[in-house]
């Protein structure tokens, strides 16, 4: 099983995402923003960071990269894609997930160990969790406030597409405490917290995040 990890200029958590992929038992394949080529991978992770400095708007410039055209095409064929933090922002900008991520309500960068509830397990990336599981994963961002039109939020809630929800204090003012959502078919998932920073207790607050990466193995092999 080969999982691609995209690097844009300004991507920061690509090495960490690749490490998480390896810890899960898959092969991590480096994908370059400028190459319109997914190198035959079975799934793609769009990692966190500040692509292009987030200077215009988080994810706004990265979504036009040649590699993203291939991602959009492959998603139509059911390729599992996980967007983490800046990756989530890029997927929203690219229209693969609805809504947008805006400046945190507190106007500061926030880095903390965040409790989350796994709300949906019927996605490519969360099949290995128990429904309703509570996990701890770091959140760290400047623009993490999930926002969408009310009708979109209603739709997401109605279809059970809210995948992760913040527990305890909402770190950024997200609507409905939404931390992560999925596409209708559950193949594309985006979340603000960083599961790749919670793959062992040595370098993270827990090993809970690893399960997203092991889940996708199950979903692809199934």
């Amino acid at each position, binding site marked *: 099983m080969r999982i691609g990890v995209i690097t844009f200029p300004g991507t920061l958590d690509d090495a*960490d995402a690749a490490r998480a992929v390896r810890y899960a038992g898959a092969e991590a394949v480096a994908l370059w923003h400028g190459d319109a080529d997914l190198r035959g991978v079975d799934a793609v992770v769009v990692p966190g960071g500040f692509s*292009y400095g*987030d200077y215009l708007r988080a994810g706004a410039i990265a979504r036009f990269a040649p590699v993203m055209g291939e991602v959009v095409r492959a998603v139509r064929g059911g390729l599992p894609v996980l967007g983490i933090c800046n990756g989530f922002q890029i997927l929203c900008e690219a229209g693969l997930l609805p809504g947008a991520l805006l400046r945190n309500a507190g106007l500061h*960068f926030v*880095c903390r160990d965040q409790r989350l509830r796994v709300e949906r397990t019927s996605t490519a990336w969360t099949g290995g969790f128990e429904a309703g599981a509570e996990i701890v994963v770091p959140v760290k961002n400047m623009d993490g406030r999930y926002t969408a039109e009310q009708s979109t939020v209603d739709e997401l809630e109605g279809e059970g597409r809210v995948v992760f929800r913040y527990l305890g204090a909402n770190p950024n003012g997200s609507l409905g405490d939404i931390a992560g959502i999925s596409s209708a078919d559950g193949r594309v998932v985006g979340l603000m917290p960083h599961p790749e920073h919670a793959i062992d207790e040595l370098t993270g607050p827990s090993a809970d995040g690893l399960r997203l990466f092991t889940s996708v193995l199950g979903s692809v092999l199934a």
Partner: protein
Amino acid sequence: MTATTHVDTVGHAAATPEVDQPYRELGLKHDEYTRIREILGRRPTDAELAMYSVMWSEHCSYKSSKVHLSYFGETTTEAMRSSMLAGIGENAGVVDIGDGWAVTFKVESHNHPSYVEPYQGAATGVGGIVRDILAMGARPLAVMDPLRFGAAEAPDTRRVLPGVVAGVGGYGNCLGLPNIGGEVVFDPSYQGNPLVNALCVGAMRVEDLHLAHASGTGNKVILFGARTGLDGIGGVSVLASDTFAGDEGGTGRKKLPSVQVGDPFTEKVLIECCLELFGAGLVVGIQDLGGAGLSCATSELASAGDGGMRVELDRVPLRAKGMTPAEILSSESQERMCAVVRPEDVEAFMDVCRRWDVIATEIGEVTDGDRLVITWHGETVVDVPPRTVAHEGPVYQRPVTRPADQTDLEADDPVVLERPHTPEALRAEILRMAASPNLASRAWVTEQYDRYVRGGTVLAQPADAGMVRIDESTGRGVAISCDCNGRYTRLDPYAGAQLALAEAYRNVAVSGARPVAVTNCLNFGSPEDPGVMWQFERAVHGLADGCATLGIPVTGGNVSFYNQTGHTPILPTPVVGVLGVIDDVRRRIPTGLGAPGDTLLLLGD
């Protein structure tokens, strides 16, 4: 083109010895200016004057501290030196930590810019120290930020503190470097002069160590990274307005802001680009551009090399129109590096830069002479012996006098203070302490810093030392702590510096790492104040003697003078950073109590 007709060339300078030059406005003393004329055998050109004035500033030349800093060398034994691959004098010290790994670390101050513009000052402080580490050939791994502010409730602290914290975070977070520790201290003496120190640690394979020198005649000098603009020029604009009086609407160029704006995205790309260049073996020598910009980079590279250097200044990519040679040489535009590259490697070098969208320009070459010659559209505007600019600046033996109030201060003993005697009084005392700004939680600060990025952070807040893993296969890692108590140092600078060292040493030791090296950032008042120089000399001796006792060397550091409000200096603040090595980070000792039932032991007396 008018730009060239106005330029003050070497020939013109030789022919016009009587021209009145604004050296005082540039911060040079009369005898320093005289010495420049002696060295050159004529008056300096505008561009030369700009170079000498920045390079001979206190900040770049260490002219007041040099005679004292040599004590670090005198007290370093061969045994202490044994694991040092590069020491004082390089961009940053380098230590061999075993298994073929080398680690480099350094603290620098960005105090004054951070008072003027807290966000950008702090941001560019982080950017600068990271480039220092990168220039050694290392991958930067983590940052720390020892900070000092005025009283917590003072109105100006409300302006400075949030800006500084946002700047440290804004730059470091965007660069992808975990923040693994620091300090936040409040004291009224820092009111008009906050301290913003930034530490960076990086690692490399021993064979990848790059030193800043330009050697090999015919090798090319390549400037790469951001374009050069008018930001951060400050004092040199007096040259522009003098020389160009009558230009630009008759008023000369208005005084330029000496503020630099950081672009962490460009720096992140520059880091990856540099590491790819190092990995491919395309770099002979490299120097970052920080304070004093190209003046510093060209003169230091040439001075440390075995030849001379020729630079065509008109090839430097600019961001502003009509910049003069003096302005280009003094610009402190951020996110730039200067490399020396073999001619046959230039094309491969450029390819890597293109891949990262980094602008790279060949601006000159290493020559077999011993002069640094800089031309502007074919005309020579600088022709100097580079050592006289970079390494042989003025050295002062400033007067040193124990401050008159020192005896009274020492006599003012804490035994006269009232102690709580009842449980209620003790309780009130503890609550008061817990609520005091110097002891309260730092979460408001540390929550704004990414401590997870790179996935190698093993200890960060609230631990006593930060710790990062360097080698994933073996678990080898380093721990760092930086500490200082300015109040102790004010009472006794010798003991205060040793206490700072001892605290940082202990913090590293209790994490499970073995302390191996020391860096420092010596923040003091004006060197022209004999009392301040006394504090400085005592602190240096205390630190050096302490290091000799502990058997670990000082591998580098930074001196920041003129930290004062009016005539009142800050508390003497020698921030000491200690680096430790741990063979396997899985054996770290986390902070805090263990499990219920564990035994608590107190060590020491």
